[in-house]
């Protein structure tokens, strides 16, 4: 954070170069990003993003909370796709506990459903704000309408719109409510038409194409060098998707494609994300079919997952287990684990270290946004300031996650 001591390289005024601080309150920086630019005319010579304005020490906080509180904090990092974060953390804890294969099938499908829904919701926010950056206001309303439907579903399942805290260690917090399936079907029916509208607004729009084609070109080799993952990497032609490379949550049973583009520019990343939304909907339709069979929604282990509240008044054991989980959590065997999922922004991972107690010893997040954003240092020089806005938008950083 706080760049006040400018590095000597940045204040060197050679020729007509000048230093410009873009942000941290600039509206097109999608949060609190400051970029120290060295510019000549309107051309960027160097760009040095300065982050940390939103640093809240979430990792340190998580080390001081029970294992079962972790996903609540994880959801606050990438607040546009809370379920993906919670899923990743929960999978990591389950691996340390060694209960991965005891999670009931229905819970796994519900998790997949929620992760994919939050991917679409997150891409909706990205597309809407990306459109606004380029002066296309109306696309924002179409996107937020679609996202609203998804947030309604999140609220129905988890009880909260933004941070549902629905995915828990051992399963999910309660079965899907009555009427959920109908609302999901309505969303599935609405989605193709809405995607057609979104594509119609931007994809063949000559202004949009002028602003994005050949802007912010990231070659495959460069993308790998900068550890760029997710749609940004696939927009550069590398078909790496954690769901295919290291399947989790039974993603290998689902049929879906990994859309890639070879161009590596902002337009390619735009197309990849749009294709990805459609693939996510494909997964959601399959998950919908799998969810027709009822079943348990959480692990049958009351040491990890508290028994249903109704049983507390009927059974002494249930009351004890409930009390134990609420008051001191559960213990996790010592070990370390690296668990990754494909988040909306790329490979989102947790590296957890346990010392056998009821709190994590170390929680390290691999923040995909941070690595993607860092590549701005490589792609910005030589471009116009106006194009910088397109590049930030096309990398889609979320600052809750960059700064943690």
């Amino acid at each position: 954070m706080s760049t006040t001591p400018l590095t000597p390289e940045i204040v060197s005024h050679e020729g007509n170069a000048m230093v410009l601080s873009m942000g941290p309150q600039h509206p097109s920086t999608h949060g609190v990003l400051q970029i120290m630019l060295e510019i000549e005319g309107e051309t960027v010579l160097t760009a040095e993003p300065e982050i940390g304005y939103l640093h809240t020490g979430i990792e340190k906080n998580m080390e001081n909370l029970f294992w079962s509180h972790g996903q609540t904090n994880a959801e606050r990092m990438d607040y546009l796709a809370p379920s993906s974060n919670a899923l990743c953390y929960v999978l990591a804890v389950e691996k340390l506990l060694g209960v991965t294969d005891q999670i009931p099938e229905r819970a796994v499908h519900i998790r997949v459903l929620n992760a994919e829904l939050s991917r679409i919701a997150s891409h909706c926010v990205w597309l809407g704000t990306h459109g606004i950056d380029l002066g296309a206001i109306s696309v924002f309303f179409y996107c937020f309408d679609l996202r609203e439907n998804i947030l309604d579903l999140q609220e129905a399942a988890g009880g909260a719109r933004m941070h549902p805290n629905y995915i828990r260690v051992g399963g999910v917090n309660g079965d899907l409510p009555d009427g959920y399936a109908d609302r999901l079907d309505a969303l599935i029916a609405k989605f193709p038409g809405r995607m057609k509208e979104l594509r119609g607004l931007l994809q063949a729009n000559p202004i949009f194409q002028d602003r994005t084609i050949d802007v912010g070109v990231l070659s495959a080799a460069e993308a790998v060098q900068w550890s760029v993952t997710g749609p940004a990497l696939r927009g550069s032609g590398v078909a790496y998707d954690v769901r295919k490379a290291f399947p989790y949550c039974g993603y290998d049973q689902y049929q879906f494609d990994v859309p890639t583009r070879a161009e590596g520019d902002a337009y390619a990343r735009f197309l990849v994300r749009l294709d990805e939304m459609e693939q996510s909907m494909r997964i959601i339709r399959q998950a919908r079919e799998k969810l027709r069979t009822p079943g348990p929604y959480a692990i049958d282990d009351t040491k990890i997952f508290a028994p249903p509240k109704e049983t507390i008044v009927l059974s002494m054991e249930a009351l004890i287990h409930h009390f134990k989980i609420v008051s001191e959590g559960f213990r996790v065997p010592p070990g370390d684990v690296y668990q990754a999922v494909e988040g909306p922004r790329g490979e989102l991972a947790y590296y957890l270290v346990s010392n056998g107690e009821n709190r994590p010893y170390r929680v390290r997040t691999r923040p995909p946004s941070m690595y993607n954003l860092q590549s701005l240092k490589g792609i910005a020089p030589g471009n116009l300031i106006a194009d910088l806005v397109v590049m930030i938008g096309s990398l889609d950083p979320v600052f809750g996650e960059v700064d943690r």
Partner: protein
Amino acid sequence: MPSTQTPPIAGTAIDPPGVRPAIDDAAIEVVAPADVRARLETLKAEGYSMLLDLGAVDYLGRTPRFEVVYHLLKMPTSAASVAQVGRPARLRVRCGCAEGVTLPTVSDLWKSADWAEREVFDLFGIAFDGHPDLRRIQMPHDWEGHPLRKDYPLRGPARERSPRPAFGLKSNVQAGTPPTGRTLEALQEQIKKAREST
């Protein structure tokens, strides 16, 4: 209050990689600080083209105190290299490092290590030799201390000096918080009046 957690005992599952049950899909290597740079160079040449992440853990009370963890990914970067590189694979390189020991930078091998090393420097105080721009990244530039160290208080050093309101008290009125005249006596007075009026 500094962390009360004890580090994992040496010899438990996380220690020698040989005895550790395979619970995730990454291979594990343990390397000494002197060899880490050479080993990572070799690995990069072997096809581990992406540095997924670089983080650190503070095992306070153990020697060496810190451990820097490199997560590497081997993957084909084009359709042509699929046969050559094979399926994607992960590798975790763990490098124990004592307090005050600097590690060689890898930011010239993988550009992405730039910010990752700055973050480890900022939050753990582990310096990297040869890093082009080793400044704080998350905390303000004039911050003192390294927050993710285990001996760093959770609420920060400044707030640590003032006593924490005890949770044992029935209400925070007794902890002396309210400056608005809502003392315990005032509250009891208010309750008494309310009772009398009914």
